[in-house]
């Protein structure tokens, strides 16, 4: 894989992880008290 593939892979992996974390946070039940 060339420079292009590495850059694209890193950018997309970071974005996907951030968005997934946001969804998990959105759906997490609120803590009691």
């Amino acid at each position, binding site marked *: *894989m*060339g*420079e*292009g*593939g590495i*850059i*694209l892979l890193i*950018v*997309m992996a970071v*974005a*996907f992880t951030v*968005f997934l974390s*946001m*969804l998990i*946070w*959105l*759906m997490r039940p*609120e803590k009691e008290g």
Partner: protein
Amino acid sequence: MKHEAAAHKDAALFEPLLRTGKGFYVTVAVLVIVVAWGAYAYVRQLVLGLGVTGMNRPVFWGVYITNFVFFIGLSHAGTLVSAILRIVKAEWRRPFTRAAEAVTVFSLPFGAGSIILDLGRPDRLLNVIFYGRFQSAILWDVTSISLYMLSSIFYFYLSLIPDIAMCRDRLNVGSLRARLYRFLALGWTGSEHQYRRLDRLMNIMAVWLTMLVVIVHTVVAWIFGMTIVPGWHSAIIGPYFLCGAIFSGVGAVIITTAILRRVYHLEDYIKPVHINALSLFFLSLSLLWFYFTFVEYFTTFYGDEPAHMVIFNAKFWQEFSPLFWVMVVCCFVIPVVVLSNPRTRTIAGAVAVSVFVNIGMWLERYIVIIPPLARPRLGGIGSYIPTWVEWAITIGCFAFFVLLYTLFTKLFPVVAVWEMHEARQQSIPETMERMRSYMPGVAASPLSKEE
């Protein structure tokens, strides 16, 4: 629960999901036929090669790259109307946001896909991954568009979740659709804390997407601007493209919302006052676009460099002049004449102007791309006439975009129900409170904080 109350009040927004008339099937059938025609043309191009198109040496880019820039531009509508207006708390945005975000999500694949159509051999797209270099503007382009597409889909989905949950809880539909709603709702309950978190996430994403819009279209423009080709090598090509993109995108939002209003009887939600606000914004974009166009061409004319003047003359007086002047009429003369007069700034007037502007903006992309290739710096004159294959694929792409949009309107509410509810519950009191804080001599509400 909060979202149940919203669903009851806005029952009209769920009607299109439950009742389907004959018109819908006829529309879908026509669109499928057009898409099939485009698909046939593409298969022909794939089998016989790019020789079936009008592209040649030296005009190696044509209608497909024009479509690429045009569709990417169209996609900025959703972000602009939804994200930017959300950031500035423009309350009139609410009936438009869903329709605008859908324009973004459904037009982006055709923008990115146009590059694949232009390649002739689609497998060569992988060369960006295997051999792409950091210095290549194409690599920045693929990266920024991919990121923009992922971010837009996520933003679109975030704002859909509460409405999908309402569909899940309220609609009596077939088991397949019910399962789809259950899956996509992700267990949304509509509790206060979920709405609070959603609001925070939407705000974060709105800022992120606004930034991305600027980056994406500047990078798209740099594919041209970073070369030293006369007619492309210009410092303002980035902001010029961005302004044009937002301009055509707002036009697309006006057209789609007006059609949805008429077809799904959403007169109570999308009112003339909304279209009027959007029309005034549209008018200011037309003036801004003209300013950029004037600056771009006047600088070239005054500099009088021979290589640049060849392109200038080709656009102003020679073979590309009909397209150039039609563009000026469509993007400047018609919007200014129609939208600056309150009598003609009606819904019908705004829709007509939007159609002209989108034709004009497509022509603008065409005359940015083709003339510099047809008048190469080293001399000679090239010509380019698109063939039926290119037109069939282009029309097929537009029909596919409309088809996806049409199917979407039958599965999900086209106006964000939860946003309308939020406006009634929170925004009206908040806006009144904000107004009180601006105005001297108005008694502050007991709710406002002591300074």
